[in-house]
């Protein structure tokens, strides 16, 4: 080996596939999304906070959430970004087209924020406080992609 000649070895195309259990709460959330185009949340019996996406435990109270309710489907943008760097899509391994809008949406009736794509539309610019609604995929599979993106209403 020549002096200063430092080798690098590539992992190649090795992948590590996983099968993530969605759990009771997520399964109900995705069932409602797929079958009924409904967004559901769950309420903490102690502090009253409504969580979307729903989950078993209120972290603030360390109490089990019990009460299911419907939220949205409209909401407001809590914060956002416009992603402009070439990003490798974790789903496809290909580069995602830029720019695209991404933000946190607070569904009407929910206390937490839900992240998703937000449309970029010159007539209705993306901003904090803008009202939005989800655009659902025609063919839904019970995944987060059953919502295509959020459309700005005002």
């Amino acid at each position, binding site marked *: 080996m020549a002096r200063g000649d430092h080798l690098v070895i590539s992992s190649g195309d090795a992948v590590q596939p996983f099968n993530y259990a969605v759990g009771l709460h997520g399964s109900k959330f995705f069932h409602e999304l797929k079958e009924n185009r409904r967004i559901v949340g769950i309420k903490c019996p102690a502090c009253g906070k409504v969580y979307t996406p729903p989950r078993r435990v209120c972290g603030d109270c360390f109490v089990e959430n019990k009460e299911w309710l419907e939220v949205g489907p409209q909401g407001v943008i809590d914060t956002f*970004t416009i992603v402009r760097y070439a990003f490798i899509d974790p789903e496809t391994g290909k580069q995602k087209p830029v720019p695209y809008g991404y933000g946190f949406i607070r569904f009407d009736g929910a206390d937490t924020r839900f992240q998703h794509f937000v449309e970029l539309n010159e007539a209705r610019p993306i901003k904090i406080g803008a009202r939005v609604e989800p655009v659902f995929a025609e063919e839904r599979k019970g995944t987060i992609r059953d919502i295509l993106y959020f459309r700005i209403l005002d």
Partner: protein
Amino acid sequence: MENIAIIGIGMIPIKANYKTHNFADMAWETVNAALADAGISIKDVDNVITTSNDFWDGRTISCMAVGDASGVREKNCSCVEGDGTFGAFYGMARILSGSYGTTLVTGHTKGSESISSLITNAAFDPIYERALGPDMISGCAMQARAYMEKHGLTSRQTALVSVKNHGNAKHNPYAQLPMDISVDDVLASEMIADPLRKLDCSPVSDGCCAIILANEEKAKKLCKKPVWVKGAAFTSDAYFLGDRDLADPRSLVAAAKKAYAMAGITDPTKQIDIAEVYDAFSYQELMWLEGLGICEPGQAASLLEKGDFAVNGKLPVNASGGLLSGHPVIAAGLYRIAECVRQLRGEAGAVQKDGAKTAVAQGLNGVAGQSHCVWVLGADK
């Protein structure tokens, strides 16, 4: 709390790509630098904590690969996955348990060997979030937007952090990106994810840092210039970013309160001489200073404009150049501690704060600062 001291520090220069070194090579040089700094041998080290992240290292139980180069044979070695400040906290707790007199704590990372956006994307929830492609940059861009909107801050104001820190880095031989830049240069740099431009973001980096902790008895016996731990605390916030008010770093506020209570600090603005904070993005330095109670929420930008946080200001912040000038994730918080130690020993050269007696170092873990670890260090016991 029993008195604990930092008796040695070791750093290697932060670089974009250590093609010349594998992880063990980096650990070997860093550990030996820390031992030499303390003036001790590996025999004086009672136990070892290594800090790393398996995704970034591209192997499971990644800490174990640096064990030999960290002198762990026949010693109790444990691993922390997270920022180095969290590893240091565990190392300190082990001494406080009474089982050990000294702990060697290391932290390493190489951002250069993988695709950072995919690594940080994997920190998001695989059921609800990951497939949409959020990563550290887009997550923090949304935090920046929320923080700036809440306090009416402009990109021109946050850009000043980048100007200051890249300029400070010119005096730091370990920094990756020493640069003379202006606010206009930051505003002219490529937009990455609104409102963050390229020069608002820290670079992808490789690095390794080590510190050696000791109880009072060992510190007095082994070390001429120990730096004392006056207070240390960490706290966590919600995992889902959507559960947090991203503009309100409440876990940092809580960690700082606990650390200050231990250290007897009632007025951080007056009692802290120097701060090294986790400036992964320009806006974060301002937000974290407010979370650390160094000023009121929303006030850091105007104090920065006044020059308070400059090297010759009232309370120099990231005099080392900070993470904007080189960001080896995981090791990052240990570098912050090590830079505070240099200041408190009066060894910080051109950026030395005269008579620095008390310093605060901050580390964090999780996207947009889910958990924070705050260290108050003192030149005097």
